[in-house]
């Protein structure tokens, strides 16, 4: 760690980010065109790679959980988990999905329902089944498998083996001291690049949704000034949370959010068509399980090719581009857990919650679409950011529900930005677990500025596509990461079980006897 100049990753990342943002301001059309071309070519040429890599990450995670490696602790042997299960799951969920799930919880099933692949009639029962199954699939265990590979590697090499918590540290078994050189810098800078653009995009779209919700409730016109005020308020809030540290800020907010989200979920389940929702949950779970392999590995070259590109491959690239950020954050909150506990916990609990969320919100919308409010799917799809609020308008206490959801969004917004700020500061200060406050402030302000500027200049879409383009090198990096993690864990197991080859070295007397 001492060998690495302190500010190389920080300065290089900042220059790169500012360059892209400047391009987005000066010529948003050029940036959009460039990112569109990059994104299109990458998805078209390497789509199969995303599918197979993601499926491989899932198999690899399960292999680690169920093999002897599952007993390895992500920390020293005597260490205990720092956060309770509830605190851990809350933060896991808030960092990994949170804001996106609120945004897409109703909108995604409705969008698939109205715009399924060409071989399915839109608006049909088959389209509804397809919509629910694929919503489960896109937000199910695969995204978590991607996060697991990243966070497990960071946690193992950092907390178990004493390396700095950086993505480059995970490659020590493969490239040795080169992690302190150009190769290491490139990996870390790429991670910063993906994180800042991923989070700025999410914040930008989140600001849109919050503003739309507030506009509906308080009946005002949403203008650029509203966006800017909103982003400024949230920036102050998440910086305040970030400066109080992980223990207090993010943990408290994440727990609060999960509680609010669970209450909202239970309310909708109770007030809405309960048995219809449970029917959908049961039936979609069955569909998901039975078509899991097919969905996981099918690029659909003969039918629905474009649909798979626009949705599944887009999502996989998106999750991968988010993985450096979520991976580093999840690693930092998972210290003291065993590999098995970590993998099984991260794969099951958030997935079950996500399935429930989609069943409740998607199911409620389907109930209206097929019952008393035909056309709601069309309304939701035409303005995705207000989709959830449209649904509430058919329920009692719709204003209260909208306000609660806006609160939920704001808090998820804060927790995401807070954890991203923490991760960015950590990555650019050579993996310091308590990064300097100044760096947190710089990155916090950068995230918000990037989101605000590109929201106004119309460059958010381009930024999202740039983040997804960064997923391609990261997919390759993650495949090597699996190899490196396997080597490291194998060594670790051998070391602890006294089977390491170098510990079996013949003693002098043995060699003498042999000769």
């Amino acid at each position, binding site marked *: 760690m001492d060998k690495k100049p302190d500010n190389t990753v920080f300065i290089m990342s900042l220059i790169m980010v500012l360059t892209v943002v400047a391009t987005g301001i000066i010529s948003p059309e050029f940036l959009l065109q460039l990112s569109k071309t990059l994104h299109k070519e990458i998805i078209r040429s390497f789509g199969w790679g995303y599918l197979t890599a993601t499926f491989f990450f899932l198999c690899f995670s399960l292999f680690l959980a169920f093999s002897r490696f599952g007993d390895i602790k992500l920390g020293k042997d005597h260490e205990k988990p720092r956060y309770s299960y509830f605190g851990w799951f809350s933060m896991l969920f808030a960092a990994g999905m949170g804001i996106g799930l609120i945004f897409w919880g109703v909108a995604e099933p409705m969008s698939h329902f109205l715009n399924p692949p060409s071989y399915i009639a839109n608006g049909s029962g088959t389209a509804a089944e397809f919509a629910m199954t694929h919503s489960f699939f896109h937000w199910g265990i695969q995204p978590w498998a991607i996060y697991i590979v990243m966070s497990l590697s960071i946690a193992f090499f950092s907390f178990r*083996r004493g*390396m700095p918590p950086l993505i480059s540290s995970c490659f020590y078994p493969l490239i040795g001291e080169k992690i302190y050189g150009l190769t290491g810098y490139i990996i870390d800078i790429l991670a910063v690049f993906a994180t800042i653009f991923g989070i700025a995009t999410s914040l930008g779209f989140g600001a849109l949704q919050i503003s739309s919700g507030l506009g509906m409730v308080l009946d005002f016109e949403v203008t650029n000034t509203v966006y800017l005020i909103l982003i400024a308020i949230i920036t102050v809030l998440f910086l305040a949370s970030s400066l109080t540290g992980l223990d207090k800020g993010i943990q408290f907010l994440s727990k609060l959010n999960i509680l609010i989200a669970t209450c909202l979920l239970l309310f909708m389940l109770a007030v809405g068509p309960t048995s219809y929702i449970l029917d959908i949950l049961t039936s979609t779970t069955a569909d998901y399980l039975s078509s899991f392999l097919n969905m996981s590995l099918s690029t659909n070259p003969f039918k629905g090719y474009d649909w798979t590109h626009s949705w599944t491959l887009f999502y996989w690239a998106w999750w991968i581009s988010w993985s450096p950020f979520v991976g580093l954050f999840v690693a930092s909150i998972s210290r003291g857990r065993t590999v098995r506990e970590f993998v099984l916990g991260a794969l099951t609990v958030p997935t079950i919650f996500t399935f429930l969320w989609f069943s409740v919100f998607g199911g409620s919308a389907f109930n209206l679409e097929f019952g008393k409010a035909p056309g709601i799917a069309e309304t939701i799809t035409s303005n995705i950011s207000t989709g959830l609020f449209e649904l509430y308008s058919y329920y009692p206490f719709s204003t209260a529900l909208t306000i609660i959801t806006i609160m939920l969004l704001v808090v998820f917004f804060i927790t995401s930005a807070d954890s991203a700020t923490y991760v960015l500061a950590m990555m650019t200060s050579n993996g310091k677990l308590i990064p300097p406050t100044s760096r947190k402030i710089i990155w916090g302000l950068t995230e918000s500025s990037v989101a605000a500027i590109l929201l106004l200049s119309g460059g958010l879409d381009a930024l999202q596509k740039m983040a997804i383009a960064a997923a391609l090198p990261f997919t390759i990096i993650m495949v090597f990461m699996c190899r490196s993690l396997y*080597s490291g864990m194998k060594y670790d197991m051998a070391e602890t079980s006294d089977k390491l080859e170098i510990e079996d070295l013949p003693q002098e007397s043995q060699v003498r006897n042999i000769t």
Partner: protein
Amino acid sequence: MLGTCILPLSLKESFRTIRSIASFIKDLGTEKIFLSHVFEGKRIRQKQSEKMGDIAEELRSMDFIVSTHSLKGSVVDGIMDLTKELTPDFAALPWHNIDPLRRSLVGSIDIDIVRSIDIPALIYKKESISSNPGLDSIIYATNFQRTDSIVVPYLSGNSLHARTLYLLHAGQRAPDPEADQKRRSLIRNSLDRLAKECRVNFDNVETIETVGSVRTEIVREARRKKADMIIMGKTDSKKSIDRILGSTAESVAIKSHTNIILIPATGSSKSGSVLNG
């Protein structure tokens, strides 16, 4: 220790190759050769018998005690039967280079023999035919495990002589710099200890410690050091991956341009692999 040798021939080898092998194994201290050939056809042909006789005469002229043995049937089974019957100290196998496509489609008798043989086997590569008498250098790839107990006697006894012995350890890097430092220090100590034991028989003993795949590093270091011979221990492998991809011994035999002597760790072995990291 390497006094008697079984030399299986396909009879396609040139006299130059035979003389070269003979002079090589003479340097190893071999005095008696069981010259063998397995006929795959229904009857032994006159021409082939005559060639066996000529080769035997050539070897006798080089002061070897030679006996000839001809069998019919499968080459690999025939050689295995002969090694059981004649109990030679080792087998000298003239290596026949086969292109990878042909090797994967029709297989290689040489590889089948390497896989099946349970006595030390010298894999003689034509490329390393040298006009210099004696061996300049031998490279031994060790992992400080069971194979040392069967290879070290050859290195410290009177069987193998060379001016330089390279002791090589190739393995994977540890997961962090501190552990790697410790690993390397242990390896260096063990290599030094092994070097001390072997120094009696060699003018110069050098140690090499590398990081990487064993099968690649052995071949690379042998080429880099221009070694005359690689010595490797061979033991049973339970690893599925070795069964699918072939053992380290097979891989090194295919890739290396250096002569190799494989010493099996177990009495009888059907699928061998070098325990080496």
